[in-house]
């Protein structure tokens, strides 16, 4: 079979892709560290993957000779490039317009406003409509500001009142929307020709001040069968409305008095180890399925290893990493799946403003989600990383 082009692969995705039965061509953003790919002898191209003209030009001029069977990205900042390349090479893939609709949080809000207001929340892009922005603020309603193209909760913040917004959130780069209180759920789906299969639902725990995700658990700790059906229906509804026909999606929703609303959605599997939680509890390998679907391969469900699984993240005070402790042992009733620090001694830890500022994680599996979640939250209460003042 011809090659698979993988755009913006992480180390983990590169490892999985290299295990496929096809040759793999990696395309990475210019200037990123590709040594982990080069050291393994892979075919690698780096250029400006955020530039549509560049991606299309490179695809037609260089990649076309290799007649790749598919182009894929499992990384947020590679999704558009994969769509442009697939389109340029006339290969199966999610159309660029659909990816752009999901990638730009404001574009998704506008699309839902026109096509499925039932799934939407009140929102404003101050640069587009100052009156919408003013109307967004009501007594008793919290407003959250998000970078339109942000990832990992970076830059997400609560805005207290319309006069207190920092200048940057009033720019075109930000979306403001009403803050929906309550638990948030991630829905992992896989779609084939417009049929959306719900693979798993996970519940997330976020830091209330920064919105950074600090834990995930699947299945959710407290969702009724009716709630699950409602979440599943809303997710399928969303995917139909935005036009996603094939491939993975990771959709974040909340349940409100007026039904399920969409927080955001992406045509890739969830990050943060969610794919691992899903594989443990369902046997479905989201990463492998996502890499294989552009090749026309439809992988099935494997065997679940446990009924529930959870992961939580360690945080640390800002500063330079002085020492790293041993991971705490898991409490009885759960099985340790993985746990590693994400930093080394000497690294600098920033204050918690995005997922990238977390310093380690643990993941456990067990019989029920409540036990798993309380186990990982308990384990991450003890510090993993000690920092000192940055030098």
């Amino acid at each position, binding site marked *: 079979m011809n090659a698979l082009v993988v755009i913006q692969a992480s180390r983990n995705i590169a490892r999985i892709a290299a295990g496929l039965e096809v040759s793999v061509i990696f395309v990475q953003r210019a200037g990123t560290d590709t040594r982990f790919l080069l050291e393994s002898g892979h075919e*690698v191209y780096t250029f400006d993957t955020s530039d549509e003209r560049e991606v299309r030009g490179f695809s037609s001029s260089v990649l076309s000779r290799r007649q790749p069977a598919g182009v894929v990205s499992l990384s947020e900042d590679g999704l558009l490039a994969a769509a442009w390349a697939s389109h340029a090479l006339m290969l199966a893939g999610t159309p660029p317009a659909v990816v752009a609709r999901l990638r730009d949080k404001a574009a998704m809000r506008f699309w839902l406003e026109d096509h499925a207001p039932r799934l939407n929340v009140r929102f404003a892009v101050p640069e587009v409509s100052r009156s919408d922005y003013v109307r967004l603020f009501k007594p008793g309603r919290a407003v959250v500001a998000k970078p339109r193209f942000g990832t990992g909760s970076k830059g997400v913040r609560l805005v207290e009142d319309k006069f207190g917004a920092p200048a940057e959130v009033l720019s075109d780069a930000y979306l403001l929307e009403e803050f929906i209180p309550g638990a948030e759920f991630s829905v992992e789906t896989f779609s084939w020709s417009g049929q959306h299969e719900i693979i798993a639902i996970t519940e997330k725990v976020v830091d209330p001040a920064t919105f950074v995700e600090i834990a995930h658990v699947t299945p959710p700790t407290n969702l009724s069968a009716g709630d699950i059906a409602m979440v599943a229906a809303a997710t399928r509804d969303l995917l139909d409305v935005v036009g996603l026909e094939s491939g993975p999606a990771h959709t974040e929703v909340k349940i409100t008095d007026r039904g399920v609303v969409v927080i955001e959605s992406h045509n890739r599997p969830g990050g943060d180890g969610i794919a691992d939680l899903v594989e443990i509890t369902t046997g479905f390998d989201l990463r492998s399925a996502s890499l294989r679907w552009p090749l026309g391969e439809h992988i099935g469900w494997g065997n679940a290893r446990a009924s529930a699984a959870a992961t939580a993240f360690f945080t640390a005070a800002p500063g330079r990493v002085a020492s790293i402790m041993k991971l705490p042992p898991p409490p009885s009733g759960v099985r340790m799946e993985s746990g590693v620090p994400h930093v080394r001694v000497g690294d600098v830890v920033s204050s918690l403003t995005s997922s990238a500022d977390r310093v380690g994680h643990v993941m456990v599996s067990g019989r029920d989600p409540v036990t798993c979640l309380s186990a990982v939250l308990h384990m991450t209460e003890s510090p993993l990383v000690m920092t000192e003042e940055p030098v």
Partner: protein
Amino acid sequence: MAVAIICRDNVARFRRGRGWVVPVAPTERYLIGTSFGGRLSALEPDQFPYVMALDIRDDDLVKDVVRWCVVSKGVQRIVALHEKCLMVAAELRDELHLAGDDVATTLRFRDKVVMKDALRVAGFDAVPRYRAIAAGDVPAEPPWPGGRWVVKGRLGVGSTEVRIVDGWLAVNDAVAELARIMPELEVEEFVCGHMYHCDSVVVEGQIEFAAVARYFAQPGEYAPGGVAGSLLLPDCALRARILRLNHDVLDILEMRSGVTHLEVFHTPDDLLVFCEVAARPGGGGIDRIVERAYAVDLVECAVRIQCGVAPLLPNSNPRPAGHFGVLGVYHPLVGDARPLDDATLRGRGVLEYVHSRRVVPGAVVHCTDYAHRVIVEGESYSDLERRMRKIAAAVTGGTG
């Protein structure tokens, strides 16, 4: 000015300490190389943000990438130092109207028949007898009388496609064998004698710098576990004669600007006979001994010239700072040669030592595929040779 660098070697060849010899900003560098054998492991993303790691043997793919770099990224120069990349680079320059060596010039330094034809036509007669040949095209009778013959790929590199055979019948076998790798061949008379090389830097048709060295081993004597290398020749009559021959050859072959590596035989009856010349720096550590002796970095000069930037050269042809040589020892036929210990190297004037793991198993493929590369300094030329022989003997178990 953006440049595309076609790099078939280890990219570390362009590295000097913390810097790189490519005289353009990192964002203007487009590196086309191969990750085979860890050849791109030394890359630093901030120094080479644009990397195209591909099958460097696929000329069509390389051309596609360079065309894209030229058309989309404004690349104006192509750098290529490896013999096997020179023609690709020249073809692209011609096609894309870029400055630098064109196909006609490159062919005169790449095709062993074309270069000798050009020399003979110009009246240069220090050329061995030769004839282009192909599989199925070997005459029944030898074209000139002789017992020992050399069969070579016309576009061969680094002695890879060279066979020295005895008797005309054996020429048939050598041609049949080599034709499987390389269809265009030549047969040449075997020239007895020591082989020397002359490495020069040419700017606008003037030889601005040249060094002469003698090969440590006889031509074609590379074999698993064997030794090779060169010793820089001090001022002497023979050196002056080789410099003159080098000048004549480069003049006839119309080298405008670039770094060249010429090989010549010195026969027992004191004649100089041209072997071949390439428009690139010599490999196998030749650049290291030239830099030690003359503070001239041949690789950097070649890169700068191909980038359209003046090479960094001393004001006049300098005197050598000492007596320097490079000794190369090949891996054994089976297994990897282990790094040499201090006892082998100590007290023998060793300035640099590099151990390289074997990339391709089995016999020696390229004459500079050294397991051990040792840069040696001697008190005199004869002392240098003695030290190199001692090291060679210590490594190979010989008598020295």
